[in-house]
């Protein structure tokens, strides 16, 4: 909107590379979420163990993907898109940094739902949406195409802290339907 179609193209080019990596946590959580929900209702210790293992695995995978994007961005972008997309390199590096909190948040947001804390999750989502809008408003005019990528990184970090805080709250067990 503020920077025109070229900026959108530079951002989208980087995003198209990062987006498919989210298949990994989505697939893992498809398997873990039911097991975690079941364990939570039967054996709290087992649920905690499963939660830690899953989040640790995702942190390791996310850290690896982040590192790969950081190191490969300077040659990957020109190789895939050509020299015209040089502006996408810093965007890809920043979006690559978001992979670690995104992977962790995949697990943490699912734990919140399993614990019946979806109202808290809605509150966190509203806060992150508002922050994202605010950060974009401030950062895009100053930093250009890097602005929204930095905003995503900040917002995902805020969500990570929010989820960690929410998971420390006691379960209210309002979930029995």
């Amino acid at each position: 909107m503020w920077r025109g179609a070229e900026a959108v193209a530079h951002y989208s080019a980087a995003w198209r590379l990062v987006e498919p990596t989210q298949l990994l946590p989505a697939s893992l959580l498809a398997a873990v979420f039911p097991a975690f929900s079941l364990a939570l209702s039967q054996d709290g210790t087992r649920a905690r163990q499963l939660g830690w293992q899953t989040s640790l695995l995702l942190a390791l995978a996310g850290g690896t993907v982040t590192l790969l994007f950081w190191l490969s961005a300077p040659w990957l972008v020109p190789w895939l898109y050509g020299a015209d997309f040089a502006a996408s390199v810093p965007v890809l590096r920043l979006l690559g940094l978001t992979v670690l909190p995104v992977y962790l948040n995949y697990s943490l947001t699912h734990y919140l739902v399993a614990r019946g804390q979806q109202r808290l999750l809605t509150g966190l989502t509203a806060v992150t949406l508002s922050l994202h809008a605010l950060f974009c408003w401030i950062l895009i005019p100053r930093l250009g195409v890097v602005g929204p990528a930095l905003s995503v990184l900040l917002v995902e970090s805020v969500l990570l802290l929010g989820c960690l805080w929410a998971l420390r709250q006691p379960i209210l067990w309002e979930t029995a339907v």
Partner: protein
Amino acid sequence: MLLLWAARQLSTADFGRYNYALAIGFILVQLADFGLQLLLSREVARLGSAARPQVLATFHLKLWLSLPVLLLLALAAIGQGVNGLVLFLLGLTLLLQTFVELVAYIFRGQQRLAVEAQLLIWVRLGTAVFGTIILWQNGQLLELALVSLAVMVSGLAFALWHLRRAGWISHIGQLWPNALPRTAVSHHLLQQAWPLGLSIFFPSLTPAWRLCC
């Protein structure tokens, strides 16, 4: 793959209309999901086969929630001729897809991911193969929309067959609501689902979108 092929085979304007219809449909069908899928998956995981009332109530709720979606799709399509018809058909396809996904989430809750994989492969591979054939034979946007709908109907039939086979329902008619959703189970489901529904309905840039994928 189908999108890439469609970009090559359709005119630029038709490809734009195809994407526009998919985007409108994607937004509207979120209203018919309302966070119910993930919630039902959790309940099936926790309660096992005792979650049968929740399964039936979720189907009934989803059918009621589909009514405003169909109305909005019809309103968006009216007066736009063939393009409107394409928009309606693709929107209806995406709406039916949410029912296939709901069944997939039930099996996910049971940790029977192989069934979920079968359902998703049926729908996605079917759409890709038949869509490619239609485009190969210089089919137009309307034919592509009709084929997508036909594949989704077959996918839903396959999903309901699995649901019956697994003992969640004894006959398909059970899924059809015969009254407004006023039961205690429906009420509680809605109460649990709305915050999740709001989280999913927020724009896709917000982090909670991952819960619907």
